[in-house]
């Protein structure tokens, strides 16, 4: 298949279209706006729904409506906008509605800036809205992965009747790379629960309200069972030069890419270092990290945040091996040289 040069935001949009997205509802915010613009052109061409909502709140609730109608629906935004969507994401989870949310993260808190950041990890992976729930979270590190994970996000959302999120940073949204756009074979499953009009069946109700303690607890037990199932089945990660690595770097998204370059250089200098790159941030690939404590003498977590995923690594390592951290807080992508320098320092501290 011939490769085409595409910007991350546009590639995600095209992937969603190929995944059979029936409705896109969004609101402009840098650095994801090209996604909305692409959809505004392509969705009407295909006779599918596109609405630029009056707010992120309206947009996520339009997604909820389209998902309730049994259609594949999507929205995209960046950090401050995704904060506004949290109400809707909680309702999607509570209603067990499949939908895809894209967060092309920018620096925060507050307005922060429009540079790449990874500081929405907690919000994305711990259920950013109210209640006990988790969205499925996928973190691409290349434009190709952004395409592949977008398609996967629609499939997982449908499989588990749960919101799924693409968590990319501004860099993933803005860079251009040669990619292959796959033809998507998978079809959405039947959705007998959808509100399509009750002709020939009992009426369907989509709700998250359970006024009495007993029924709400029973409902939550069902949801939690689903999350345990997701955690058992869907942990995904990538590995790079882990063989013989005594120092394991854990980094996702753009930071994972930078680490990969730094590791290649470090290996050239004979340093036993490798990369563990989580792909699913929820469910976190904790089982694979736990098994690495046999081999690793130190973990180094790199994030464009003050250390959010760090906590999940620490939980997986359970204090058996030291976990070091380096973060970038200004919406700045680290350079490989910075990472190589850190690798050297940590090696001196633990491996010599």
């Amino acid at each position: 298949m011939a490769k085409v040069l595409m910007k991350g935001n546009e590639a995600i949009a095209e992937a969603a279209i190929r995944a059979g997205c029936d409705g896109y509802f969004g609101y402009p915010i840098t650095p994801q706006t090209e996604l909305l613009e692409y959809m505004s052109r392509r969705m009407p061409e295909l006779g599918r729904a596109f609405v630029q909502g009056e707010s992120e709140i309206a947009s996520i609730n339009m997604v909820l409506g389209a998902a309730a109608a049994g259609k594949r629906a999507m929205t995209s935004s960046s950090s401050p906008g995704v904060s506004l969507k949290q109400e809707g994401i909680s309702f999607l989870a509570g209603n067990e509605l499949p939908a895809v949310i894209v967060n092309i993260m920018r620096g925060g808190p507050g307005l922060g800036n429009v540079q790449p950041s990874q500081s929405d990890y907690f919000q994305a992976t711990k259920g950013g809205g109210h209640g006990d729930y988790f969205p499925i979270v996928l973190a691409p590190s290349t434009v190709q992965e952004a395409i592949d994970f977008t398609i996967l996000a629609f499939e997982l959302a449908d499989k588990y009747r749960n919101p799924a999120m693409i968590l990319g940073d501004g860099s993933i949204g803005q860079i251009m790379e040669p990619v292959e756009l796959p033809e998507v074979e998978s079809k959405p499953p039947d959705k007998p629960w959808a509100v399509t009009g009750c002709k020939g069946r009992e009426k369907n109700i989509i709700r998250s309200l359970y006024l009495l303690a007993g029924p709400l607890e029973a409902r939550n037990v069902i949801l939690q069972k689903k999350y345990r199932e997701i955690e058992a089945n869907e942990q995904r990660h990538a590995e790079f030069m882990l063989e013989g690595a005594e120092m394991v770097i854990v980094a996702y998204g753009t930071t994972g890419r930078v680490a990969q370059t730094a590791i290649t250089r470090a290996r050239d200098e004979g340093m036993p270092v490798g990369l563990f790159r989580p792909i699913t941030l929820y469910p976190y690939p904790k089982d694979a990290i736990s098994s690495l404590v046999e081999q690793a003498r130190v973990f180094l977590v790199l994030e464009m945040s003050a250390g959010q995923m760090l906590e999940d690594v620490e939980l997986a390592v359970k204090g058996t091996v030291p976990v070091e951290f380096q973060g970038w807080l200004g919406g700045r992508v680290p350079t490989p040289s910075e990472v190589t320098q850190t690798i050297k320092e940590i090696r001196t501290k633990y491996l010599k």
Partner: protein
Amino acid sequence: MPEGEVVFARPAALEDTPTHYCPGCTHGIIHRLIGEVIDELGIREITVGIAPVGCAVLAYHYFNFDTVEAAHGRAPAVATGIKRVSPENVVFTYQGDGDLAAIGTAEIVHAANRGENITVVFVNNAVFGMTGGQMAPTTLPGQVTTSTPTGRDVKVDGYPVKVAEILAQTTGAAYIARRTVTQPKYVRSCKKAIKTAFKTQLAGLGFALVEVLSTCSTNWGMSPMEALRWLDENMIPYYPLGDYKVIDEVKALP
């Protein structure tokens, strides 16, 4: 069972489930009118209703067709999402004044202005009912509520929001009317307006809303009968009944 033809009974679009509403609450009348209209238009099997947050949150137990419960104020956005991907369905929202005129103002104004082809039944009882009678955007000047214990002071709380008048200004709206259900003649007129609002959608003419002045005897601290009178004497002068926008295509509807 008496002899003769049944000329008035529960519509098929309404479940046989007794409602949780307080005695005399006019939500029950408005629910029934919607059910009757849906029966008469023969659209029960293609209708999707959106329930609000507030006293009518359990409307999905009472309507006998597909329903979605929306977050507070977001019903017009949810309805937009459904209607855009499934235009063959008839989609309506049922919203109270807290839901529609406070937290949901952005959603309703923009749905109206987009000319979204949905129907809205807006129930205005001048109070937040479900949470126990706090001031709503529609609470009248001087009206005592649990959050305006000395009466709504317009210098502090601002003025009651006139939803029908505001939405009639949106270019996208096709049909905007205000009715009430305090007397049999008003009930008949209200049903006609709700029917027009659904027919507007069926004809693809765009956004239609009927504001229905409603009672909340419990939170007003009155008997159901006193509440009907209070509404007639106090709410109708501030919120006059009538048609606020009827585009020519709606006027021409059969």
